[in-house]
């Protein structure tokens, strides 16, 4: 049985290709701005694709002491920055919450780039070229550890590398932990730095577009890789009300499923199941959902499968449900994606605006949904479903709702 505590989001921190900080991020999102540009993290001349959603103008020293920066991998830096922004946004001083009831749960896909960089040094120059500092940075759990250390969060500290849905897994478990009383406060979300391995891997799977990401478009050519971090500050509703915090939304529940089908391709049955389980866990019906923040990677397979699954559940009773993919603007930020998208869900609820799916030119009859093409749409949003489907058929969807505390 679930505990009776209700869990709300009172702080949002975003580091993305559309800006650092949730305000600039959201402004760009609802204006349909693209964060995709030419990749500068590494040399892409040997590739057919040269575009990516990299974070620009990120100055780590803005968020952590200068002497620490060189000891931290990039993914940790992004996570610390987003966490710092979330805490500031929640208007809660660390001194007030540092305790063993303040925990951190973070999702990622490829972890610290230091591991890839070490592998690269080794492959090019041999063991002698291995940099010890990079080796120390390489372990993936450094990401959540570094956030825990920075903000003195002595509660549970977990790193969940559930690939492209990791952010939702982290937010979902953070919600479970506050609900059952293990934690009173949680920083939950995802972080990913622009990965050379992912860039090469997706290209070899022919999953990557050469120029842009056009989810649900008939002529879509695939995903675009991105990076960034989205962190949510979670606490109980009671705590938020008591301290007069601004509340974005409530986590109503979440669902998980595993396709048990294929390492890289999705199975529509598994997708249908996870969305149904999320609705059930949140105790909402499909008619209650105003907006689905799609996984929408822009690949032929994902978008078709996702649209099919959406129609199977919503087709009869809620055909007009709005569906859009932020990946059209941010690219696929991997472990950060469902977390950044969760933040957008909260802001959609707050402002009554649904982000668009940009780069949309030609409808695809196999994606028979309203994907809010190119222009954001004003609409009162009370309940949102956030989809996340990862490699390995690891699926996790979270339901967010407007807070009705009376």
């Amino acid at each position, binding site marked *: 049985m*679930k505990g009776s505590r209700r869990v709300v989001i009172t702080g949002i921190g975003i580091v993305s290709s559309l800006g650092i900080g949730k305000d600039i991020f959201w402004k760009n999102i609802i204006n349909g701005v693209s964060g995709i540009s030419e990749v500068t993290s590494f040399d892409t001349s040997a590739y057919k694709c040269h575009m990516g959603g990299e974070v620009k103008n990120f100055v780590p020293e803005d968020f952590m002491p200068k002497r620490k920066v060189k000891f931290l991998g990039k993914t940790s830096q992004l996570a610390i920055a987003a966490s710092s922004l979330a805490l500031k946004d929640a208007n809660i001083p660390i001194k007030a919450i540092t305790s063993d009831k303040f925990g951190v749960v973070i999702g990622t896909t490829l972890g610290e780039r230091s591991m890839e960089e070490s592998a690269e040094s080794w*492959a090019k120059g041999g063991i002698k070229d291995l940099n010890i500092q990079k080796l120390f940075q390489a372990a993936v759990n450094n990401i*959540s550890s570094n956030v825990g250390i920075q903000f003195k969060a002595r509660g549970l500290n977990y790193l*969940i590398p559930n690939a492209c849905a990791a952010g939702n*897994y982290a937010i979902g478990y953070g919600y479970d932990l506050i609900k059952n009383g293990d934690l009173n406060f949680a920083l939950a979300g995802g972080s990913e730095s622009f990965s050379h391995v992912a860039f090469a891997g997706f290209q070899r799977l022919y999953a990557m577009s050469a120029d842009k990401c056009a989810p649900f478009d008939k002529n879509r050519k695939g995903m675009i890789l991105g990076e960034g971090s989205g962190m949510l500050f979670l606490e109980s509703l009671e705590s938020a009300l008591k301290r007069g915090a601004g509340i974005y939304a409530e986590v109503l529940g979440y669902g998980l499923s595993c396709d*048990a089908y294929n390492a890289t391709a999705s199975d529509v049955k598994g997708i249908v*199941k996870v969305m149904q389980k999320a609705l059930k866990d949140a105790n909402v019906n499909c008619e209650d959902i105003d907006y689905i923040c799609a996984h929408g990677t822009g690949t032929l397979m994902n978008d078709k499968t996702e649209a099919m699954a959406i129609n199977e559940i919503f087709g009869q009773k809620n055909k007009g449900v709005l569906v859009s993919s932020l990946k059209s603007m941010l690219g696929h930020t991997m472990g950060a994606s469902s977390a950044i998208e969760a933040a957008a869900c909260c802001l959609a609820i707050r402002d009554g605006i649904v982000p668009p799916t940009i780069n949309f030119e030609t409808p695809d009859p196999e994606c028979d949904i309203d994907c809010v093409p190119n222009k954001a749409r004003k609409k009162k949003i009370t309940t949102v479903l956030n989809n996340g489907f990862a490699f*390995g058929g690891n699926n996790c969807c979270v339901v967010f709702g407007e807070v009705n505390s009376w």
Partner: protein
Amino acid sequence: MDNKKVVITGIGVIAPNAIGRESFWQALQKGTTGIKPATLIDTTYFKSKLAGECADFKAEDFLGPKGLRNLDRATLLVASAAKLALDDACLEITEENTDDIGVVTATTVSVAFAIAKFTKEVVDDGPQMVNPALFPATTMNYPSSYVAIRYKIKGFNTTISTGHSAGLDALKYAVDFIKTGRARAILVAGVESFSFSNFVGFYKAGFLSGRKAEETCSPFDKRRNGIVLGEGATVLVIEDEEYAIQRKANIYAQVLGVKAFFDAYRTADYDPRIRGLKNSMKKVLEESGLSEEDIDYICSSANSVQRQDRLETQAIKEVFNIYANKIPVSSIKSMLGESISASGGLQLAASVGAIKNSFIPPTINYKVPDPDCDLDYVVNVSRKAEIKNVLVINFGPGGNNTTAVISKY
């Protein structure tokens, strides 16, 4: 919400000193070491030579002869342990029950080899020529996903990569899911595979024994000077007690509690105040409804590192007070090496063995006492004892401290 009891109904083990639950328990009872000169890699140019390898492991024995070519070692190990566990639990996955069954897997460092392999091909042959089949294993959730694909387990699939504590962290995640009804049975897996990537990484970072002193895996011993790297895989089937009873499963033991806390001290460094570890031990006793004197055995995480073994000893003394030197403490890593995220599962499997077969595994390779480590470590030879409640400890230099209590059912 705390009404649901969580029980262990199946155990699959692939360890350096044994394959299979029964053999593992016997090997622990005999004090059989799995630590030998490494055979999977060439250690010629290194001062460290030892490893806890699952040298006798042949994946074909568990997974059949086909379809294994592109699978990395960690995936082969955990998929094999899963087969053993499912058989041991007599749990058949069907269309009817699969949505109520999930997998959570602890693994952290094994991925380094998959990334190294992929990157080497990109560097050597260029990005257009790298074998795409090498890409999926570069994500840490691959071994867990493969277990689900192979055995058609659809309830949920989560990977936890918290390093030294991941084994028990995965157990906590699973227990939470059982208690909230997200699943009725869960495969709690833990795996790390031994590879050149890990060996070199730990060697260069200064963690391995043998660089500056005699190479040995001797927890609590004064001569200890670093870890011997190990590998292994375990899968424990844990269930909602009602579900286990319904399907007439054999119940090994009960999980009374799991508690995880973080030191928030310094990256990859031990907190000298061991606040997180002490807190974890105190709170897990509380959660389990036990007092200090109720613990019959402490399954330690001591791994032959000076500070680790000393700090754990100190924490036990401060939490258990007058009972500290009356409760036997032993480290199975003395026989298995330090297998990071696989350790927790191996310790859990050993603890169930202690309860079922009434014995305490020894801390072997113990020759020179350390005045700072003066508890009863059951040195060198196992001991017969009635064991009801075991405290299992997972902690390491990352700042994570997770403990669990396993109890006779």
